[in-house]
């Protein structure tokens, strides 16, 4: 029988099992796992074995079987779940991941599983040490029995029916919806010219239906945060172990859903923030004890929904940051002037860590210094249409707060007119719009400034930044306030067109390389506009 049609299904289901597998291992190793977690781990290995056997992937089935055997010994209280077991199981999960990748790419590579299988089969705990241990409470409940490989899921009569859909289909659906929205704006433009009441009515009805369609499509594309969260405990655990720190890591809100496009892009920034937290923010056990803190540090990753945004918070109870020291460092490195530094609020000072070129000496240890700095983290978040803030208290810990939109394909923008073209700015990047009297502008050196809410803000021309000639300048200058490289600035435009929902078209090659451009869109009148990538405008 030709099994190839089932290969993709096998790969995606196996990966789901493996993701859960790694998270459960770390949880059990830290002692925060329950009896149910132990059973879930066992079930994952068992299911993987059954699925692989039925597909004829003998090596995967055999390795899963050996893992299942080791877990069975824990289940029967012959072994306690210690760090040695966790290491072996994680090694097994890594090897299985590679073997499943081989299946996915149809690579006929024979992986050597013999050594690991032998170590799994003959595992004996080391002499008692100070490592945290989990004693599996396995008073074998009568209700537990491993499910057959293909009948894993519980069936409830009242459970909603689900289907698996290829991700390309979801992408196509949002693309078509986006094009429909563009066409709705075309009809609105034509309607205005024709002054036809029946056409207006039909367009209003079309708008309502499109809103509903868009909402449904957005819902379809949402994926729970759990889809990526399962890998973070492993990241924290491995790094903590490597540098001799003790960490209790918690994830909350794994059920919160985000657009899959955002979720994919969020992984690297979160890994970077978490690695920073383990490497820099948390003190060593000895340092913590010396200042009266519990020996293990605590890191929490919390995800919650707030209106039409998703808020992701990474917080630690480590050493915190000293805003004055950050300002001094930034002045020393020439990243801010002494006067601007003195005026900085603590929140602004913490954001200095996101400036390109800013790093404290300890940040280049090779652990967190992987070429993805905090500037790249903030840039990614802004490119996704979100924003980032940092809170910190010296000696008590820090919080990194990421605010993200629910979807990235169809976004709300502020459309502005410049001398030669119109451009779009994601509304999430616009803090405020205003019209400024010329008489309120003053200069310091060559820099034009204005006051807003008691703060001195630099005034820049968006025409000049984008290389366009000056536009018509009247007595009142339309401008919007946004954050550029960690500083609030006012960007002067020729006029405001208004706020609009647009469908983001990727620029592709070669325009995607153009600094400061985040995408493009077509307006209802057929006009092409560029969406500015505010984070990378300068």
């Amino acid at each position, binding site marked *: 029988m030709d099994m190839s049609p089932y290969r993709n299904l096998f790969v995606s289901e196996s990966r789901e099992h493996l993701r859960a597998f790694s998270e459960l291992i770390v949880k059990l190793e830290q002692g925060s796992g329950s009896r149910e977690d132990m059973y879930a781990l066992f079930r994952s290995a068992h299911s993987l074995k059954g699925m692989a056997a039925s597909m004829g992937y003998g090596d995967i089935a055999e390795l899963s079987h050996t893992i299942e055997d080791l877990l069975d010994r824990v289940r029967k209280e012959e072994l306690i779940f210690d760090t040695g077991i966790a290491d072996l199981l994680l090694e097994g999960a890594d090897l299985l991941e590679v073997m499943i990748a081989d299946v996915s790419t149809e690579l006929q590579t024979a992986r050597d599983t013999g050594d690991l299988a032998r170590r799994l089969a003959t595992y004996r705990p080391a002499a008692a040490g100070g490592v945290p241990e989990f004693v599996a409470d396995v008073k074998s409940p009568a209700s537990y029995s491993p499910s057959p490989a293909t009948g894993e899921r519980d069936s409830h009569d009242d459970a909603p029916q689900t289907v698996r859909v290829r991700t390309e289909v979801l992408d196509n659906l949002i693309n078509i919806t986006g094009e429909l929205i563009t066409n709705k704006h075309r009809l609105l433009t034509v309607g205005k010219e024709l002054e036809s009441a029946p056409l207006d009515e039909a367009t209003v009805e079309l708008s309502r239906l499109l809103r509903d369609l868009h909402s449904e499509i957005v819902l379809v594309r949402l994926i729970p945060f759990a889809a990526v969260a399962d890998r973070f405990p492993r990241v924290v655990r491995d790094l903590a172990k490597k540098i001799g720190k003790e960490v209790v890591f918690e994830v909350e809100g794994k059920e919160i859903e985000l657009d899959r496009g955002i979720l994919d892009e969020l992984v690297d920034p979160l890994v970077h923030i978490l690695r920073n937290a383990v490497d820099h923010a948390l003190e060593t056990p000895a340092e913590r004890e010396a200042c009266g803190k519990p020996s293990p540090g605590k890191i929490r990753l919390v995800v919650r929904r707030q209106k039409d945004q998703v808020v992701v918070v990474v917080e630690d109870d480590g050493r915190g940051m000293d805003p004055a020291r950050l300002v001094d460092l930034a002045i020393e490195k020439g990243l801010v002037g002494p006067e601007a530094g003195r005026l900085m609020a603590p929140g602004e000072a913490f954001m200095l860590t996101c400036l390109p070129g800013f790093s404290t000496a300890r940040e280049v240890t090779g652990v967190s210094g992987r070429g993805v700095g905090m500037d790249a983290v903030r840039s990614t978040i802004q490119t996704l249409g979100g924003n980032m803030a940092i809170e910190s208290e010296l000696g008590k810990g820090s919080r990194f707060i990421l605010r993200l939109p629910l979807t990235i394909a169809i976004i709300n923008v502020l459309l502005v007119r410049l001398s030669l073209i119109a451009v779009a700015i994601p509304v999430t990047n616009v803090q405020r719009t205003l019209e400024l009297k010329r008489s309120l502008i003053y200069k310091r050196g060559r820099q034009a400034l204005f006051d807003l809410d008691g703060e001195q803000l630099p005034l820049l021309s968006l025409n000049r930044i984008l290389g366009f000639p000056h536009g018509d300048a009247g007595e009142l200058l339309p401008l919007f306030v946004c954050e550029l490289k960690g500083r609030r600035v006012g960007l002067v435009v020729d006029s405001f067109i208004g706020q609009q929902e647009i469908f983001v*078209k990727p*620029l*592709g*090659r070669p*325009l995607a390389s*153009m600094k*400061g*451009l985040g995408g*493009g869109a077509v307006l209802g009148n057929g006009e*092409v506009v560029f969406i500015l990538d505010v984070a990378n405008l300068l």
Partner: protein
Amino acid sequence: MNVTSRGFIVFAVKGERYGLPLRVVAEVREPSRSVPVPRAPEFLCGAMNAHGRLVAILDLARLLGCGKTTSPGTFLVLDHSIANLALWVDGVEGFAAEEGEGSADLPDNGFIAREVQSDRGVLKLLALDNVLKKMEEVFKQ
């Protein structure tokens, strides 16, 4: 002429004859409305909406360093699998088939992959990947 996978579209830039494999060109069209691109170098003369795609327009003569393309000219829109790019050239002459190798003496800017003999004469085949790399290199600055 027998148009095969070895066939080329032949176009002119400043009196020189150039070629591109047929499979990389999606459309030949008259120049249409375009918008200026922020921070564009001189060789990038705008962007346009090509059937829902945002396509950058390259003045090939400027990139090759031989002046600027003469209006109105013609747009060669590349296949989307290659790039979202249209080449603005002086005009399209037609199709040609390769009949042999041309001179091995090529300009050192890397924009010409090779010369071939064809039934329309000698063609300089554009090294598209190098053209795109050059554009991206300039855009990133």
